[in-house]
């Protein structure tokens, strides 16, 4: 997906900032969105994550580690956000859709959104692996590193998540 060796930049430089933004901003925002379900909050969290990345003060030993760190931090910050005292307001999915989605005509948004709604309604332990696997395209091993579980566990969570989705959606969840 990414040509890491070519794309990496020296940590802390402006090139690195651009590299990180280019490579991770979408991933961070979307992953955070699966938690907070509000694009504005997701962007704020993404900004926090990137700030934390820069404040970390030292480069990562590998791209994999960098990726795992960023996504783990995103998950944690998203959870924290949901638990924070001032975030009691819940944004309905409909409202989120209205705020964030493009034209339904162009993208068959109704069906797509129902799928997304089903995914986002999953318990977090299923939702995050499902999202990382199907949306971001991470492997089971990569997801295991990100969420701190064994690959076998991740496989189980994916399977159970799919089962849940089948229950939620008419006709099941096709992962082909």
């Amino acid at each position, binding site marked *: 997906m990414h040509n890491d060796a070519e794309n990496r930049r020296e940590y802390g430089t402006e090139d690195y900032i651009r590299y990180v933004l280019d490579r991770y901003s979408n991933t961070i925002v979307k992953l955070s969105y699966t938690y907070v379900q509000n694009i*504005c909050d997701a962007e704020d969290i*993404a900004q926090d994550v*990137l700030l934390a990345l820069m404040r970390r003060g030292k480069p990562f*030993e590998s791209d994999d580690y960098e990726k795992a760190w960023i996504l783990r931090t995103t998950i944690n910050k998203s959870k*924290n956000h949901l638990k924070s005292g001032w975030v009691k307001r819940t944004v309905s999915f409909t409202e989120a859709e209205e705020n964030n989605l493009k034209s339904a005509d162009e993208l068959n948004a109704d069906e797509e959104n129902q799928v997304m709604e089903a995914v986002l309604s999953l318990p977090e332990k299923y939702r995050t692996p499902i999202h990382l696997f199907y949306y971001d395209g991470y492997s089971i091993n990569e997801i295991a590193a990100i969420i701190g579980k064994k690959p076998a566990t991740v496989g189980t969570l994916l399977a159970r998540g799919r089962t849940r989705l089948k229950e939620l959606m008419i006709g099941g969840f096709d992962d082909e």
Partner: protein
Amino acid sequence: MMSKSIKQYKDAMDNIRISESFLKRTENLLKELPENETVTVSSKKPQNLRHIILAAGLGAAACITAAVTLSPAMVKDEIAATDIVTEVTSVTEVTAPNETVYIDIERDDQIIIPAADAELLEKDPPDETAAETNADVTVTESVVVTEKAVTESVVVTESAVTESVKPVAEEVKTDSDTAPAQETAEEESVEAEPQLRYLYDIDFSNAEVELVAYINSASGTLTPGDAPAVDDDEDDDEAVDEGVSSPSEKKMEMVILDTEAAEKLVTAAADIIYSSEEIVPDGRYSPALFAVSINNITTGNKAFEIYLNENGTVTLTVFTNTISFFEVYKPTEEKFALLERAMFLYFGNAEEYESYLAAKSGE
């Protein structure tokens, strides 16, 4: 009709549009970060985050060790206590009780234990010692400073935390009866934001972690607080636990992140949260179930200690250039269980964890 395709999920996610200004705004923000901030993890973090991180990460286990370290009198079995300290780290920091002084951390957000938590604290004391501790773990935040720590832990921060961390002595407010040497620091601390180290500050490439589980493998029971970290005796009949591992720095950093998140969850869930109290060296500690110490590889000195205690509290000890201090926190039962599991599975192994759970449940 509902779609079955994952493609629709991807399309739906793709259609969530990031605001146009976000990338530009974030890029500018990152570029404008002061140079020293980009290399100093702790310099600008919100104070409550700092507290949470400290509370979360290391809060778990440091109680017993700290208790042992700072005041052997708090532990019933002094010999065992000394053994623990010796085992956990290469630096023995056992300090005579009369060497202990107390200083309070000056904080904006005073943590007050809620009545519910206070009740919780007084519930299910596993034994008399725990009962004593439960009754006591409630009050205000405090720091315990030992003269020994001042002299012996100087090296810890130098490599475990490389970036500009001010000595805690400059960041804490002393009690009226605190040693005169602290008074200057007290004055300076009035406006200075505490510069306590974060778990994030750990130089993971130069650190090692030891898990000390106080499980007597011979009897299969928990023997709180008196198990050595490493059984280096050839006669292992009395081996208590071999739970010493050297996880990769990735695991270490990940568990720290988890711990931070866990404590934040506790914070939010309970409205309030942990209690920290002024700890006196007279048996106010609960026996530890197990401890995690994070040591500097180069120096062998401790950087942090996390103790998960029998009474469900978590103790975090931070070793700075000049002093060591610890705080006691009271997470929810769920969060405590989460921390138990995280600590074991990251720093120990599944078998240990199962043994631990079995022993804890009395099976």
